[in-house]
């Protein structure tokens, strides 16, 4: 199995120059067969962003329905599909792919590698994710989307209570997508452990790479329990097994355990990369090295470790008993410690620095502020008695939107404004970026802050309307107005993309005078990334080198790009391959077969095997 691609098309200096001009150009076929981590990162970003928009529209529809009491704008069945698809899409098909987009674009550049360890496996992960997302959305056209909530509790999702195919689409889409996600985790673990350039020791890696490593480990270990839970669910529905069937003596809570053993680490899968981005952005725009680097690293590792021991706090209301609840409540409170440590480290990094409020910095500081709000409401319902009041109300909805938008989305936008110019070579408009930040910040608080109150007043989640005269009208109306501000907030973002495309200024190698390796080569990077594999001697390699080589007070722009423009020796890069696409199509067909018949599944399995063998026996050079 030749999965480790080293060798392959030889490129001399002249050819490399031609390639450099067209890092992202080339026809459709070149995108379908690409194994370049930067291109795959762009594919992940664009696809994830489109899913973000779709799930955002679903959220807007939910808010429109809840704007007034007793509203009949949407019918209840459709409303159930909307909140299920909103949550499922945001977590699996917007949040995670946008994070993996950042892994792809940034990690090889930050560790001094020319690509990931397994470039074809990387392409395979993307195609499987894309097909899983499209498969999930096909459910709207074949009998209705899943409507059991993103955590799909049994027995509601059993065949008896959900006789349609929606839940089957849900389980199959997540199983299919999970294959690509686990493949990504293996790929990035091996890439970070094995592909580091000389001198990039673990304790010199930028924080984003560190958090990618930790997140990959979380994915690797958290997705299998979800896989098992989904297989049980699917087998119960399709082949009559009894895993969640109380009448046969089974315990339907088994699903909740399997789901949340995955689901709680999933929360950290979504937030730790954002913490990593912020830990890279804040030092750059404070002109100070990260305060307490080892403590920030180990806090991240500790959060991940503790994250596997707190899943029952999602199940306090299921009656597992006071001792279980107390233990898991205590463990949950413990997580606040490493998280708080990180917050103080970011503040200490900014303290006394020469701050520059670039949009990336605004989003990073915005994360520090809003994540604290969501974090504190999280500590509130880590206490079981408080949680029993708050669980399944809008208080919880407020909490997790503060951490997911104020944390994950803010972190991702910080990364977007930070690395956009590296990927495209163009600078974004800073004024538009600031408008985007302030409007998003306003929308977040206007939408979700009132939900703390409507939740404490007892408004339940996932209920398509509420009665008049319960004191909920004003809070819900304000929330809906906030949701509409999110739409306005997208205008400066889109305008900024158009601006950068039409007349964005060239970015140069290192527009922010940042300290890490991805800023040593031209923007966009040549397809081989590093003309010369760098040797790193310190934690903030560029700052250390600039300090040695340039005189004080010198203009940033005058500082040299540290990578030569042409590789001095031929660079070997992996060749494009269409086998990952073939194999993903095979898996998609096999998945469809679960709904249409065994013959289709067998065809899919055959195509998958053809793809696998084509892949394994692809000649290294062609």
């Amino acid at each position, binding site marked *: *199995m030749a999965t*480790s691609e080293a060798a392959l098309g030889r490129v001399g200096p002249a050819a490399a120059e031609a390639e450099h001009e067209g890092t992202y150009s080339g026809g459709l076929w070149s995108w379908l067969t690409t194994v370049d981590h930067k291109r795959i990162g762009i594919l992940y970003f664009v696809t994830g962003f489109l899913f973000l928009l779709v799930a955002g529209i679903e959220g807007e529809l939910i808010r429109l329905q809840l704007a007034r009491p007793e509203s009949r704008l949407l019918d209840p069945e459709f409303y159930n599909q909307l909140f299920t698809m909103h949550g499922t899409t945001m977590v699996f098909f917007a949040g995670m792919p946008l994070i993996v987009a950042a892994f792809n674009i940034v990690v090889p550049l930050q560790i001094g590698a020319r690509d990931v360890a397994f470039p074809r496996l990387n392409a395979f992960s993307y195609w499987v994710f894309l097909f899983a997302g499209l498969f999930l959305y096909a459910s709207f056209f074949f009998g209705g989307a899943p409507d059991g909530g993103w955590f799909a509790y049994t027995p509601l999702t059993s065949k008896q209570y959900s006789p349609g195919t929606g839940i089957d689409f849900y389980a199959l889409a997540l199983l299919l997508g999970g294959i690509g996600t686990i493949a990504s985790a*293996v790929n990035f673990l091996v890439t970070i452990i094995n592909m580091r350039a000389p001198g990039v020791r673990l304790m010199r890696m930028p924080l984003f790479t560190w958090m990618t490593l930790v997140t990959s480990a979380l994915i690797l270990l958290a997705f299998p329990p979800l896989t098992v839970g989904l297989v049980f669910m699917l087998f119960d529905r399709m082949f009559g097994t009894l895993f969640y069937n109380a009448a046969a003596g*089974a315990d339907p809570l088994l699903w909740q355990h399997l789901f949340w053993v995955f689901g709680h680490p999933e929360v950290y899968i979504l937030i730790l990369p954002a913490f990593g981005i912020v830990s890279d952005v804040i030092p750059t725009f404070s002109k100070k090295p990260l305060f307490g680097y080892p403590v920030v690293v180990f806090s991240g590792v500790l959060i991940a470790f503790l994250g596997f021991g707190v899943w029952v706090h999602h199940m306090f209301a299921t009656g597992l008993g006071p001792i279980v609840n107390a233990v898991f409540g205590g463990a949950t409170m413990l997580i606040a410690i490493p998280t708080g440590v990180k917050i103080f480290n970011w503040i200490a990094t900014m303290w006394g620095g020469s701050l520059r409020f670039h949009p990336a910095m605004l989003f990073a500081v915005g994360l520090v502020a809003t994540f604290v709000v969501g974090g504190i409401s999280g500590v509130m319902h880590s206490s079981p008695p408080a949680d029993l009041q708050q669980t399944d109300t809008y208080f919880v909805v407020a909490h997790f939107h503060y951490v997911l938008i104020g944390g994950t989305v803010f972190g991702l936008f910080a990364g977007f404004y930070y690395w956009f110019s590296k990927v495209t070579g163009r600078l974004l408009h800073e004024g538009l970026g600031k408008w985007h930040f302030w409007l998003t910040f306003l929308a977040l608080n206007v939408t979700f802050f009132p939900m703390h109150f409507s939740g404490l007043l007892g408004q339940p989640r996932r209920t398509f309307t509420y009665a008049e005269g319960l004191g909920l009208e004003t809070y819900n109306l304000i929330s809906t107005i906030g949701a509409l501000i999110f739409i306005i907030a997208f205008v400066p973002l889109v305008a900024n993309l158009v601006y950068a495309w039409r007349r964005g200024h060239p970015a140069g190698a290192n527009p922010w005078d940042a300290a890490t390796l991805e800023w040593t080569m031209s923007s966009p990077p040549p397809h081989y990334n590093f003309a010369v594999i760098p040797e790193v001697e310190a934690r903030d390699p560029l700052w250390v080198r600039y300090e040695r080589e340039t005189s004080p007070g010198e203009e940033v722009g005058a500082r040299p790009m540290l990578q030569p423009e042409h590789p001095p020796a031929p660079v070997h890069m992996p060749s494009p391959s269409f086998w990952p696409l073939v194999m993903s199509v095979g898996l998609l067909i096999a998945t469809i077969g679960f709904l249409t018949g065994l013959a289709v599944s067998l065809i899919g399995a055959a195509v998958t095997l053809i793809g696998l063998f084509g892949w394994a026996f692809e000649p290294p050079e062609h």
Partner: protein
Amino acid sequence: MDIPTATGIPNRKLAMWTFIGSECMLFGSLIATYLIYKGRSLAGPYPEELLNIPFITVTTFVLLMSSLMMVLALSAVQRGDRRMAKVWLFMTPLFGLIFLTGQYIEFSHFVHEGLGLSRNLFSSTFFVLTGTHGAHVAGGVLWLGTLWSLAMTGRLSEKNTVSVEIAGLYWHFVDVVWIVLFTIIYLLQ
């Protein structure tokens, strides 16, 4: 074929170790489910009426011997002994196939005795757990069979040691899982 790495461990080998970590969680979840539902079936036939320990002990022995042959196969490839590499790369998946045949006989016997997939909690957990393991064995047989066909056509030399080594890692892992399953299903009734 493998590029130099920061740790000195070939990428593919490290990937196999990480993948095995993930597989531990997969089998861990399945085994936990089996143990939670143990003895909670409301309808017969019950496991103690059906499980045939002597028969499964034989197939277990066969599977463990296949691990020994895997070691011999790797050693032959490392030495550059092409003749013995062909022999052991044939015997390893063959013994895997014998194990799978035993599993097929056991499954059909159970179904014949009225223990279908949806009969009781024992049948659901037993078939899905051992079936998942069987699917892993089948994947390993396909993989090792491919390596054997490469050896037969002279395309497998000591340069491919890592290819055989990671197949071996996988194969030994699947065997270790079976030792656990054999213990918790058959020995600790």
